[in-house]
């Protein structure tokens, strides 16, 4: 790891741009959500910096894990190994993410592996995260994560704990994961040299619950027609869960997102001229979040919900006892966490959630943005197509890479979206409206 970690250009890109971006965002009095998200991310990066300077222990984990247990250990920093990839694409420089991917491939990671894993491995190889006291891997949200968790363990050379989530969706699965979380606690205590205080965990879980209730409120506002808030915000639920849930920061972000949506609706604002609504079912275009603005402006298409944004109503963490908290955290990991919920085991939940979102968010169509390396999603595409056909829901299927714009260009994605909207969805909606008027 470089001694001057935060002088690395991958970190400097944030310190060079985020303060200005935050100032710009502050100019929009109504955009609390995006402002809070960016400000808190900047604040989180500052916290990582300060912890690093103080010599605090860090725990690394991969993107299927929630940070509550780490946050409950006083003075321990949480690092998700995919965070550089997401942040470079959304707030930094996407070309740096390409460098992570290329570095991982050069080191022997097969090119057809998921770019999330490749980017995570490349960022670790570049030494961009503070050295961890230990690392925690989890085999969610998808099997591919096994690659990055193994690399995380090998490259860090630190003690490694793996949470193995079964393919099933029953209570036995939740109990099995809860038992593993119970075993994880002494592991974390041993390697971070911090004692877990159950009352502190209770506070963290309460904050986590508070954030979730605000996320639910936020998503309820996003069901309204027309959508009064930017489409692109929804994808950040997963990022919020992975980095911030269980902290006051997580509550503040969720509160700001919900407040923005609520106030815009109460003022009767139209974010733009909405003609159509889509459930974006698969990975967001992290490489180019402006494409959502383009869809809204050029196609009149909004995305009120996507698979990364959907947080299922499967209950909150019961904070009454240590066991109930571990069980609640396990339930969250298996059954609520976006992606982990849909990408594990059989395809039924994946399809059922789409149908629910389509109805609840009053969508006109589905967009399967097929991340090229996602074997889970592509493995079920035939059944998913069939289900949409039976339900008479227009579905666009296209290939791209969520972290690597070199696979499918922005223009190619735009062509796919435009063709689908202008050839299928909008004409069908017009015919339906004409029929209803007669």
């Amino acid at each position, binding site marked *: 790891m470089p001694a001057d970690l935060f002088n690395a250009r991958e970190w400097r890109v944030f310190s060079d741009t985020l303060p200005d971006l935050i100032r710009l965002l502050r100019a929009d009095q109504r955009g609390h959500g995006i402002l809070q998200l960016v400000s808190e991310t900047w604040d989180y990066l500052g916290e990582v910096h300060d912890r690093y300077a103080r010599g605090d222990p860090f725990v690394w984990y991969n993107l299927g894990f929630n940070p509550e247990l780490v946050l409950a250990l006083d003075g321990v920093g949480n690092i998700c190994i995919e965070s550089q990839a997401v942040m470079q694409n959304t707030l930094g420089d996407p070309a740096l993410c390409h460098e992570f991917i290329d570095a991982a491939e050069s080191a022997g990671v097969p090119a057809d592996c998921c770019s999330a894993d490749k980017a995570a491995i490349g960022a670790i190889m570049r030494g961009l995260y503070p050295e961890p006291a230990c690392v925690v891997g989890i085999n969610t949200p998808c099997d591919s994560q096994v690659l990055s968790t193994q690399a995380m363990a090998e490259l860090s050379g630190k003690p490694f704990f793996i949470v193995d989530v079964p393919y099933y969706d029953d209570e036995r699965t939740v109990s099995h994961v809860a038992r593993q979380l119970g075993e994880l606690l002494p592991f974390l205590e041993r390697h971070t040299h911090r004692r877990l205080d159950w009352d502190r965990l209770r506070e963290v879980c309460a904050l986590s619950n508070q954030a979730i209730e605000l996320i639910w409120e936020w998503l309820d506002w996003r069901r309204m027609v027309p959508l009064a808030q930017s489409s692109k915000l929804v994808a950040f639920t997963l990022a919020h869960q992975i980095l911030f849930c269980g902290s006051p920061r997580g509550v503040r972000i969720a509160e700001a997102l919900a407040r923005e949506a609520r106030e815009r609706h109460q003022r009767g604002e139209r974010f733009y001229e909405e003609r159509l609504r889509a459930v974006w079912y698969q990975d967001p275009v992290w490489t180019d979040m402006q494409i959502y603005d383009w869809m809204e402006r050029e196609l009149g298409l909004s995305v009120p919900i996507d698979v990364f944004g959907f947080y299922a109503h499967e209950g909150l963490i019961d904070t009454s006892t240590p066991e109930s908290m571990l069980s609640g955290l396990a339930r969250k990991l298996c059954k609520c966490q976006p992606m982990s919920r849909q990408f594990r085991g059989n395809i039924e939940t994946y399809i059922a959630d789409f149908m629910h979102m389509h109805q609840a968010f009053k969508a006109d169509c589905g967009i399967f943005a097929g991340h090229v390396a996602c074997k889970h999603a592509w493995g079920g595409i035939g059944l998913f197509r069939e289900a949409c056909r039976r339900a008479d829901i227009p579905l666009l299927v296209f290939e791209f890479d969520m972290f690597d714009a070199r696979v499918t260009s922005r223009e190619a994605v735009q062509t796919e979206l435009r063709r689908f909207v202008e*050839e*299928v969805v909008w004409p*069908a909606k017009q015919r339906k409206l004409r029929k209803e008027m007669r």
Partner: protein
Amino acid sequence: MIAAGIDIGSTACKAVVLVDGKIAGSAVGPSSTNPGKTAEEIFARALAQAGLEGGRADCVVGTGYGRARVEFADENISELTCHGRGASFVNGAVRTVLDIGGQDTKAIRIDDAGFLVDYAMNDKCAAGTGRFLDAMARTLDLDHQQMDRHSEQASRAAQITSMCSVFAESEVINLINDGVEIGQIVRGLYDAMAGRVAALARRVGLEKEIMLTGGVAKSRGVLSALASKIGIKTLAPPAGIDPQIIGALGAAVSAAELCSRAGE
């Protein structure tokens, strides 16, 4: 009412003239480096065939990759929509259209009025397109009619394993060198192509009737290979209607609707 559709594809330009809802003239010619001029020439030929030499249409719709270059068109509509409308015009029972053009292959599902419901496209690879057959015809030194005749005489198909046009060519040369009958090679090529198209077609859900359009639909061998791959009889447009003009026909049908709406 005179309505016309012009389809500027990657290899051919097609025009159809409808007079009072009936096909009165059509023309097909090779695409050129000046698509606007080619469109004018082909349109003039279609008008002449309709007995309207030097005349003009009330409404014109352009389609195909070069549709933006049809400067005299009142509107541009994509070829996906036009192939659906055209196929439905010639056979109202059609629900799935497989268009094998020079540059891409499209599987199109339409409703009972011919409107687009779903589609899948292969526009990134030459395998399964007219270009693939053209390249193979050159390798075999045959024209497409000769290829058809050879395939009909073959007792079985040679195995062409490659899904890539470039590698398939090497494979064909190897088969020739191994002394495999030309007819068997051609049947193997048709099977390989049909396999590719059938996979695309299944993505949109095969619903009867299925119609093959585009220049490749003129090949009896491809039609038969496709029917065998998808297990459903695949129709060509009725006798007397060139499958290559279906896109232009759909454009003409859309032009006729445009005229009607303008008149309302």
